[in-house]
């Protein structure tokens, strides 16, 4: 029976996230693993796998920033298409970094500055209307954009500029609003280049702190404790896919579904985002991402690469991939199709099943799933 069926869908999604976030019974503990094993996984994931992804993200935003600057000198439809491609390249890279919610990703609210989402109160839309009405110079000043509202300085704002048909039309038409918007888009792209550059710069020190976990560290007293950040990234990344990226647009059922509640709906890439998230999440388990790192050296090393458990996990993960691959990039497009809702719900069910495997098999055997108080406190 599917975990999510129509009717009471949102409550069910909320319940599974609540349960998974801390109210489930602790899984059976495995025998103690030497701390060195956790250390090796941390070294591999933080110093081999992640830095090239951050470099790629930074590089893609730099390309986008340069491209926007050139495009705005003489905007046309072909140039707009190129900028949209550039946006998609950068967003692909971001979606592979986004689940690694730790260290410099979270410092100074950087993850929200890069992408302010979900925007439950429609803050961005409201502020965007004001922006267009008043055209404040702050938003076209690369030195000042960082002082602007988080909702107006990252990917969602750039998406609005490039993918809203009316605004994009104004840019190409070079009218007064269009000129301002193009400058604003350029400033956002530059801001993304700066923010992702900070990520690149700050990551090594964070990785070192994790790698040098030990009794003298007031942040990471053991490698095992440090490795919980990686386990949580995997676990919470999946929960966020369920509760925010899928359950929000699906709503209570087919009649309540609304693709505009999805991430990146305007760029028609909500499901493409999830696909890249999944790729990145699997890398935490497996140890390889986009050619960086090595399969078998991620969290799987703690449960035994090619063990029965590993083979089972990989088979089940493939079902998640299959459900994701069966969908187009666009939530708007799929929900407009007959049976589209069910296909998205199938992905949701597969990810939810994966959450249970992560908790029981990965969390239980790596002992990273949380302790007595974390799993069942009051």
């Amino acid at each position, binding site marked *: 029976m599917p975990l999510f069926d129509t009717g009471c869908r949102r409550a069910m999604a909320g319940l599974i996230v*609540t349960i998974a976030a801390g109210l489930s019974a602790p899984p059976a503990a495995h025998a103690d693993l030497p701390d060195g094993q956790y250390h090796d996984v941390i070294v591999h994931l933080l110093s081999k796998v992640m830095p090239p992804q951050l470099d790629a993200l930074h590089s893609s935003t730099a390309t986008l920033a340069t491209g926007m600057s050139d495009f705005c000198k003489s905007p046309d439809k072909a140039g707009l298409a190129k900028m949209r491609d550039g946006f998609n390249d950068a967003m692909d890279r971001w979606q592979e970094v986004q689940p690694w919610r730790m260290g410099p990703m979270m410092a100074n609210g950087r993850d929200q500055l890069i992408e302010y989402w979900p925007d439950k109160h429609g803050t961005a839309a409201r502020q965007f209307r004001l922006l267009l009405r008043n055209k404040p110079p702050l938003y076209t000043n690369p030195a000042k954009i960082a002082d602007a509202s988080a909702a107006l300085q990252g990917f969602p704002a750039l998406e609005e500029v490039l993918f809203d048909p009316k605004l994009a039309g104004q840019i190409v038409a070079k009218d007064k609003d269009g000129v301002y918007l193009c400058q604003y888009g350029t400033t956002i792209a530059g801001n993304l280049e700066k923010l992702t550059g900070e990520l690149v710069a700050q990551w090594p020190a964070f990785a070192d702190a994790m790698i040098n976990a030990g009794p003298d560290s007031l942040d990471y007293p053991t490698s095992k404790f440090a490795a919980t950040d990686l386990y949580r990234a995997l676990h*919470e990344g999946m929960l966020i896919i369920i509760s925010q990226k899928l359950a929000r647009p699906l709503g209570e059922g087919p009649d309540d579904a609304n693709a505009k509640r999805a991430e990146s709906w305007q760029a028609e890439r909500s499901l493409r985002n999830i696909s890249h998230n999944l790729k990145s999440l699997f890398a935490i388990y497996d140890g390889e991402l986009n050619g960086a790192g090595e399969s078998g050296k991620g969290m799987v090393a703690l449960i035994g690469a090619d063990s029965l458990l590993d083979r089972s996990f990989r088979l089940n993960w493939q079902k998640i991939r299959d459900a994701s691959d069966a969908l187009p990039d666009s939530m708007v497009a799929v929900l407009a199709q007959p049976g589209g809702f069910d296909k998205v719900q199938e992905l949701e069910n597969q990810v939810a099943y994966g959450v249970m495997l992560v908790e029981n098999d990965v969390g239980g055997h790596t002992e990273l799933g949380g302790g007595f108080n974390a799993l069942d406190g009051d």
Partner: protein
Amino acid sequence: MPLMETDFNPNRRNVLRLFGLGGAITFLPAGFAKAATTVTAPEDRAVYISASAGNNDDFYVSAFNAQGKILYEQPLPGRGHDVGLRPNHVDVAAVERRPGLYALIMNRHTGEVRATLKSPEDRRFYGHSVYSSDGRYLYITENDFDNARGVISVWDAQNGYKRVAEFDSYGMGPHELHLLPDGEGMAIANGGLKTHPDFDGRTPLNIETMEPNLTVISRKTGEKLYQTRLKDDWHKLSIRHIDVTLDGTIATGFQYHGGLNDEVPLVGLWKPGGPELQALEAPDNVQYRMRQYCGSVRFDVSGSVFAISCPRGGVVTFWDAHNGKFLTNIAAPDGCGLAATDRKGEFVGTSGLGSGWRMDAINRKRIELPDDSLKSLKWDNHLQRISA
């Protein structure tokens, strides 16, 4: 090698279970007497009490000394939560965690059970209790589940712990409660969660409509004196744990029932009669480590610093009680129980993984309690200190 009587042996837990509730055994006298003759600082003679658990669904109230040496374990029929200390008396009240059916009154020095309280059929205990300053009355948070109403029950400790009254808590899901410094006002954290034994007594049934608050009532009449709440946007922040300092300031920790990456405060400060509850946030790189969940709250001995444990994030955060500013954080894997020592800015913390630490918020230091016996148990939500 045979164990000395004063050596703690985790295998004895099975023996203890056979004795049942009436079979309290003390490991205290010899070890405690030795400690008392060889150390002089008050903190070295302090005893810490907490609910605890073994690995086989076996639950206790346990005490350990300042070195972390377990002094006794008293088996419980179910999982405990916090213990209330009766002033100037040996009694401590161990209330079963929600939905609790029992509370045991124990001798703090030995764990011996002196009385057993049972929740009425239409009530469930909620894990926390507090005594009046004169030690006469015990107050316990309860759930009147058929009416979805929070209740504070009143038990007369001088008359065999007879249940003598109950007051409205002015909210749903009351959890931790404390007396204000005047000894008359009683602060109650109404977590806002509706639960019912028909649904396991723990699953929240009203997340979309929950309305947590912080209320002060008169402990004598039950009259509502003050109440505060967070803004509506934050109604999913369950106000769960509190502590009160000598000037009446209340520090509180929240547990969020919304999204994992929603940006919400998790800590609050309030002085009854003053402005509304002030919501506090740590710097982003600490705030996310709190994982939307605070487990316990404790002021230091001076009342100038308070600590908030976040077991899901494995971190204890420290805050300036005067201005609400974040001070620092110290990693504490599965750390939850907190007690103030007699030194400014210093706390003892315990972990569900068995560890115990002495943590200095002012100098940002953490020292593990040295006695390994502490590691034979999982230490539960709350910790209380008894000064010798």
